[in-house]
């Protein structure tokens, strides 16, 4: 049975470093599948205007399409061209929760993410995405600098 590594990308250079580390790790493991995940931060409990609701499906499809084109597809193409077995997905929700869910679903060995670049009040009050993932994850997490 092959191993699975889950890597979370956010379109930033730090995410690229996480991907590079994942490739190195996968190369060391050998028989390994890489699951590339991009999460669009979203809450079902946010407040919206009627107009936003009416065009929500359209906005969601556009966001998924853009994420696939700009982040997931280039990453998958690069991985497969280098001989790695890779799959990708774009999800809506809370980053920490969803990365852990994907790891559980794919029976992954570990999750690899870059260190959060977010700052400001919400990160101070609620903690960064990376910190939340490290605190709540049920599989090992590697944080790449």
């Amino acid at each position, binding site marked *: 049975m092959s191993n699975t590594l889950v890597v979370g990308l956010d379109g930033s250079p730090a995410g690229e470093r996480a991907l590079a580390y994942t490739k190195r790790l996968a190369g060391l493991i050998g028989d390994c599948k890489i699951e590339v995940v991009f999460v669009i931060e979203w809450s079902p*409990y946010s407040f*919206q*205007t*009627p107009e936003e*609701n*009416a065009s*929500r499906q359209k906005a969601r*499809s556009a966001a998924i399409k853009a994420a696939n084109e700009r982040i997931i597809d280039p990453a998958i193409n690069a991985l497969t061209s280098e001989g790695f077995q890779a799959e990708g997905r774009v999800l809506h929700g809370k980053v920490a929760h969803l990365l852990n869910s994907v790891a559980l679903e794919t029976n992954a060995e570990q999750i690899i993410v870059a260190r959060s670049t977010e700052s400001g009040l919400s990160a101070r009050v609620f903690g960064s995405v990376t910190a939340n993932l490290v605190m709540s994850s049920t599989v090992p997490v590697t944080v790449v600098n």
Partner: protein
Amino acid sequence: MNRLRYWAAMPAMLLMLLQTSLAHAESLDQKVNAIFASSTGWFVNLIFAPLPGTSFPWIVLWLVVGASVFTLYFGFVQFRAVRHSISLVKGDYSDPKDAGEVSHFQALTTALSGTVGLGNIAGVAVAVGIGGAGATFWMILAGLLGMASKFTECTLGVKYRNEYKDGTVSGGPMYYISKGFAERGLPGGKFLAALFAVFCILGAFGGGNMFQSNQAHAQISSVMGSYPGWITGVIFALIVFMVIVGGIKSIARVTEKVVPLMAFLYVGAALVILIINADKIFWAFGQIFEGAFTGLGVAGGLVGALIQGFKRAAFSNEAGVGSAAIAHSAVKTNEPVTEGLVSLLEPFIDTVVICTMTALVIIITGQLLVDANTGLYVIEAGRIVTADGSSGVALTSAAFGSAISWFPYLLVVAVILFAFSTMISWSYYGLKAWTYLFGEGKNAELAFKLLFCGFVVVGAAADLGPVIDFSDAAIFAMAVVNITGLYFLMPIVKREMNSYFKRLKSGEIKKFK
């Protein structure tokens, strides 16, 4: 020396200029008021015509009967399904694959931001100011019965919505009446749908716009001092213009996020006042029950209290009016009944909780004057005499201000935000009705939006009386058409409801959380 005289005369000249412009401004308000009252009077009289031989407006009976019929027909769904409704709002039954789509919570809160507004603050003050404490009882009853009306219309709103290829959604009575009637082979669906759209446009201009700007101006001027209403109207109209014509969505987004906070602050402040006056709560409920069945001397007695309670509840929670069905139709669900079940929480939050809070604060703080000898209200010109002679939003402000001195300032902010969010919601409802009638197109949409901004100014400049009458008449005219449609389409809702509950019971519909 001449120059000195010139400068000395300047302040006097400026003062004279200001006085002249204010006099002109006041007369502009009066002119707007006179034109508005005379041009809408016939419509108001038609909607509020009394039943033959009585003083009971037929429209109030229409609303009561409608809500009661739906309550009985759906077997008191508003009471037996509340727990499941809350589960749906929490997302317990939402498929994680649908993440990023409009959730039940979002559809509910968006609809609530259209209904929680000045109806809860000013409308309730109008109800108890005319109908006394007893109006509160009928308001709560109307809220509870109205939950079934909301369930019916929002289920249909989702079932018959239009989902376009580009991923946008349009729904509401216009669509379910025309499609539902066609599906059942009934004639007149398209005519009723068009008639609803006409009244929805009037409702958007009335309750969704003029009433809001009128009462926002009343609250601002009660705190800042009197000044012409058209000034508030023009400022409001410019902001609304920036959002709906200029496309500056950030203003609307900020409002949508701040309004729930304001609602919590408002309810929180009301709770604090009730706790401070905890010893009077039983007395207040006594007044509410006694007033409900005797009127405690209000004009029209029991019937007077009932009319005011039902009118203001319907105006506030819009149950049976059809507007909420437009907002709820954007939700992501394959089961239309689920949105009906979620929507029935709306009249509960709006009327049973928030409106009751407002009424209790007005009663408990002793704003309604009672004759010490008879125990009945002191009546003057058909209204209950209040502690400082205020009515409408100023009465609510005085009630909160008597317990928390700085609250009227916070209320100004809350009123402006509530008014603004309600206007934004109704501009959308009105636009949907407008495009249903005239088709989608930039020019048609711009014409509606400009008219909408114009009515903001008219509402702020006109008196409360004619504005309330027209706003009520327009909203209730929507209810006449919508409830007629609901009577013919309710068997479809029942079929959907029975099928859903059967599958829920059998375990076919599963929880995801």
